[in-house]
Every structure is written in structure tokens, then in C-alpha cells.
């Protein structure tokens, strides 16, 4: 039985595509067959983050138009066995895909892969509905920021209304030193507000940007980095393993934060 998971957030710019590419690579690295589906028609970027942009020939739209077979449109990642990408069309109108068509494609993909991971566009319009139509599970990506949390809550409500009941939360771009100074909501705060189970915490880390610059998922480019470890842990939790959450309480804080900590301030 393959798992169809949508990665969504409501708000744009919180890291959906980064999470999709890195998590997809981390799951494939565990020996699973993973198909990543870019559902962001018109504004595709998943190919770029995976470093596969030059190898895109056909897109999901070509498959729907009957111009190629599904297998022809899939871009295989040569660095990671079992990882493929179904690219979104860049040039055509994103209104041209309907939820039923998306469902047909994803159902066909599900026959050959353990995981189908769908990268949803921002917003809650047609593109979002296309991306959740076949999903059985959802990973909500949010950051500890007020607008991101509010939009995540809206999206969770919409997913529940559509019958997607297995919903887990990824809190992205955590800044431990700000949390320590109560300048940023903590993961616990966000969890309490949203009321869905946590599956991952990813620190705000330069390695993430460096890996996107190079088009190299962290598990390949910088496997020892903290965010790479965070993605690896999420992959293992998806596989049903119990992995403790990383503790970022850090040496990142400045000297006064440290002094305050020592004196219990």
C-alpha cells in the first residue's frame, strides 16, 4: 500500500518545497521508492530545489493531454535510487488542471511507489484542491510566525472537512536563541494553538540555503548538518520509528542569554 501525502501550509514562503525535496530525498535514502509531485502549476520550483531542472522534458500536463506516457514524464534522480519527480507545467494556465485529473495521475503513480509526496501551492484555491484530492495524509509546514500559524489552522480545518484525518505538523525555521528570549513562539506554543501532532522540527540554518543554491538535497550535500538530521528523523517517524526530537537549545545565544540561563533569569 503506497502512502499519498500532501505537503501544504496555506501561507507561501514557509518552506513547503524545501521540505518536500529534502524529505523526499531522506525517505528515498531509507530505501523506499518515492515519487515527488509538483502541484504548483505555473510556479514550479521543486525541479530547481532537487537540481533536476535541466532534465525536465515532459510535465504532468503533457501526461494529461496524452502527449506522453506517465513514465516518460517522470524525472529520475540519478544520485538517489528510487527518487523520481513529476514536474508541473511552467508555461500554461494553472487553472487548466482539474482535481479529478490530478487524482487519476496520482492514483496511477501509487501503483509503482511506496510514497507519493505532493508539493502543494500556497493558498486555498484550485491548486490547493488539486493537491489534496488524492491525499490520505497531510504534513502541515508552518513557522513560529503569527500569519503562518493562522493560515496553517485554516488549512487544517479544510483538510479535516475533506476527510484527510491523518495530519501532522512540521515546524520550520526555529530560532532557538529567539525562543529562549521569548521573542519567538516555541514549538510547544505552536502545537498548543494548532492541536495536531508534531512530526518534525527544523532549525533555521544556513545549510538549507546552501543546499538549495546547489540543487542538492541536504541528505546528499550536507548529511552531517542539523537540518539534514531533522529531515532524516521525520523520514524515520513516517516509517513508524520512535525518534526523539532534536534539542536545539543551543550555544547560539549570546553571552547574556547564557548568563541569564546560569542565574535562572
Amino acid at each position, binding site marked *: 500500500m503506497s502512502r499519498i501525502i500532501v505537503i501544504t501550509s496555506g501561507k507561501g514562503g514557509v518552506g513547503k518545497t524545501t521540505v518536500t525535496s529534502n524529505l523526499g530525498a531522506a525517505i528515498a535514502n531509507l530505501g523506499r521508492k518515492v515519487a515527488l509531485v509538483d502541484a504548483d502549476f505555473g510556479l514550479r520550483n521543486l525541479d530547481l530545489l532537487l537540481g533536476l531542472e535541466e532534465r525536465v522534458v515532459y510535465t504532468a500536463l503533457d501526461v494529461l493531454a496524452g502527449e506522453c506516457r506517465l513514465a516518460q514524464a517522470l524525472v529520475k534522480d540519478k544520485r538517489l535510487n528510487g527518487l523520481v519527480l513529476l514536474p508541473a507545467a511552467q508555461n500554461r494556465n494553472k487553472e487548466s488542471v482539474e482535481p479529478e485529473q490530478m487524482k487519476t495521475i496520482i492514483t496511477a503513480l501509487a501503483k509503482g511507489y511506496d510514497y507519493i509526496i505532493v508539493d502543494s501551492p500556497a493558498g486555498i484555491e484550485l491548486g490547493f484542491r488539486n493537491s489534496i484530492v488524492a491525499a490520505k495524509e497531510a504534513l502541515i509546514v508552518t513557522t513560529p510566525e*503569527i500569519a503562518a500559524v*493562522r493560515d496553517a*489552522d485554516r488549512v487544517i480545518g479544510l483538510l479535516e472537512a475533506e476527510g484527510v484525518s491523518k495530519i501532522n505538523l512540521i515546524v520550520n525555521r526555529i530560532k532557538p536563541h529567539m525562543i529562549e528570549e521569548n521573542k519567538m513562539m516555541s514549538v510547544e506554543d505552536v502545537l498548543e494553538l494548532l492541536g495536531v501532532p508534531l512530526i518534525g522540527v527544523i532549525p533555521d540554518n544556513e545549510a538549507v540555503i546552501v543546499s538549495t543554491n546547489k540543487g542538492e538535497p541536504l541528505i546528499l550535500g550536507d548529511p552531517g548538518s542539523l537540518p539534514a538530521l531533522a529531515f532524516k528523523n521525520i523520514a524515520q517517524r513516517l516509517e513508524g520509528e520512535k525518534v526523539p526530537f532534536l534539542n536545539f537549545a543551543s550555544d547560539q545565544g549570546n553571552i*547574556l542569554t547564557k548568563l541569564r540561563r546560569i542565574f535562572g533569569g
Partner: protein
Amino acid sequence: MKIIDFLEMLFPRSGDKKSSFKAKERLQMVLAHDRATITPDLISSMRREILEVVARYVDVDIKEMEFGLENNQRITSLIANLPIRQVKRPGNEKIKSKVSADTFSGVDNTSPPEQPLSEK
């Protein structure tokens, strides 16, 4: 590090010191509102009809009653707190008024002791 930064770190301005608490507080409010997909009109007609039914059996203290939606852990509940002034006894209006007179006699405070009925 400039001296002013250093001083601010030692004596943080209360305004930005706990902005995370502020964010959480504001979100709690806004999420409760976002999650309530029931319109105010619907609430008020529901309130009216429920009161009609309850009023057949008991006298409700309308001034003290609470009626509204609350959110907790993704579950929206209707919370109604209807304090009862007195229980109506079917077919005996005389007894009712007598009890009422006795209860009120000699008590300065106009509101009689009551047992609030809460439904959750």
C-alpha cells in the same frame, strides 16, 4: 557590540521582551474566531429557540446567562450557562407566585439565591 545594545540586553524594554506571549495571545483570539464557522445570526436564533424551550420549565435569569462558542483543541463547543431563578410547577401558578413572594421577602438583594445550570 555597541554600548546601547549592551544596556538593552541588561535592561530589556518591556515592550519587545515578551513578544512571543503577545503573538500567542493574539493567535488564540483570532483562531477562535476563524474556527467558528457559525454566523452570529445563527447563534442568536439558536439562543432564542433554546431559551424558549427551557423557559417552559424554569425561569431563566436572562441577564446572567452565557451563551456562545468556545474552542479547545480543535473542537468547537456550544457553551450555555443558564442560571435558574426558579422552577415552574406545571398547573400550579398560585404556588409559584407564593414561593416567589416568600423567597423575596426580607431579602435586600433582589436576586434570589440560585443554582446555576451549566450544560457543557
